[in-house]
C-alpha cells in the first residue's frame, strides 16, 4: 500500500488471447442476431488496412505550400480532405492542429484508441498501449523525449485527448531547407508520427 489513493499495479494490455476469443464470440453473436452481415467486420478491416498515412501527408504537404488551403484545413479538415479527393472517414468532425515554433500539439486517446484512421491508417501499437495512454497526459515531455523529441519549457505544449467524436490530426512544422522541394517531395517527409505530434517530419535528404 502507498499513502495516496491510486494503486501502483503495473499497467499492461491484459490477456490478448482471451480478448481475441471474446471478439470472435461477439462477432458470431452479432451475425446470428442479424446486426452484422457475415464478412462485414472483415470488410471493415480491409478498408482500415488499405488506409495509409500517405493521405494525411498529402493534406499536410498541400497546406505547407498553399496558405489558403492551410486556413481551410484548420477551419474544417474534413471538407479540406474531400477537396483534395481524400476519404476523411466516418467521423463527422476532423480537426487539424497546427504546430508552430511556440505551440506543440500531441494527440492521445486515454480511453481507447480513437485516431484519424481514414487519413493515417491503423494506429501504431504504442498508440493503443496503456503506458502511452496514461503517460502522454501526465508526463508528455518525458514521453516525447523517449521518441527523441525535445520540447523546450517555453513551448506551449498541448496534449489533446480525443475522448469523443472528434478526430485530431497534427500539422507538423515544415522543416527548414525545403523551399525548393515539390509538394510530392514534401509529402514524403511527413511521417505518421509527426501527424500524431510525437516527432518532427523527416529531414530533407542532402542534395
Amino acid at each position, binding site marked *: 500500500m502507498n499513502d495516496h489513493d491510486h494503486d501502483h499495479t503495473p499497467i499492461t494490455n491484459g490477456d490478448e488471447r482471451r480478448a481475441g476469443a471474446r471478439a470472435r464470440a461477439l462477432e458470431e453473436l452479432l451475425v446470428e442476431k442479424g446486426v452484422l452481415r457475415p464478412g462485414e467486420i472483415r470488410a471493415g478491416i480491409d478498408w482500415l488496412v488499405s488506409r495509409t498515412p500517405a493521405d494525411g501527408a498529402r493534406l499536410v504537404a498541400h497546406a505547407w505550400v498553399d496558405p489558403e488551403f492551410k486556413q481551410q484545413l484548420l477551419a474544417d479538415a474534413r471538407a479540406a480532405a474531400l477537396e483534395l479527393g481524400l476519404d476523411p472517414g466516418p467521423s463527422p468532425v476532423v480537426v487539424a492542429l497546427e504546430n508552430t515554433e511556440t505551440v506543440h500539439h500531441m494527440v492521445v486517446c486515454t480511453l481507447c484508441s480513437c485516431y484519424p484512421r481514414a487519413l493515417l491508417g491503423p494506429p501504431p501499437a504504442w498508440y493503443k498501449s496503456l503506458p502511452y495512454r496514461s503517460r502522454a*497526459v*501526465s508526463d508528455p515531455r518525458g514521453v516525447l523525449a523517449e521518441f527523441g523529441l525535445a520540447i523546450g519549457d517555453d513551448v506551449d505544449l*498541448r*496534449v489533446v*485527448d480525443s*475522448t*469523443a467524436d*472528434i478526430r485530431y490530426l497534427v500539422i507538423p512544422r515544415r522543416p527548414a531547407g525545403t523551399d525548393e522541394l515539390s509538394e510530392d517531395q514534401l509529402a514524403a517527409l511527413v511521417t505518421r508520427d509527426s501527424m500524431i505530434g510525437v516527432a518532427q517530419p523527416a529531414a530533407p535528404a542532402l542534395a
Partner: protein
Amino acid sequence: MTYRVGEPVTVAARAHSGHHRTPSYIKGKTGRIEGVHARFRNPETRAYGDQGLPEMPLYLVSFARSDLWPEPCAGGGHRVYVDVFEHWLEEAK
C-alpha cells in the same frame, strides 16, 4: 450551448457505472472552455443499442497539468485538452 469559450468549468465528480467518455482523471477538476464542437449523440445510451438522442453539446475543455496531478513533473508545464459532453460540466467551483 450553456458555456462560452474562456469560461471556467468543473467536471462533475460523479461515478458512472456504464459506458461513458469522461476520463476519471478530469472528474472533479476545473478547466476552461476552449471551444464548442457541435452536438453529438450521447455515447452513454448509444452504447446500449439506443439512438443516443437527444444529441448533447460537446466542448473542448483544457486543464492545467498542475490542476490534474499534485505530483510535479519534469520540464515546463502543459495543458491537457479533452472533449467533454455538456452534461458532465458544472459551473466552476
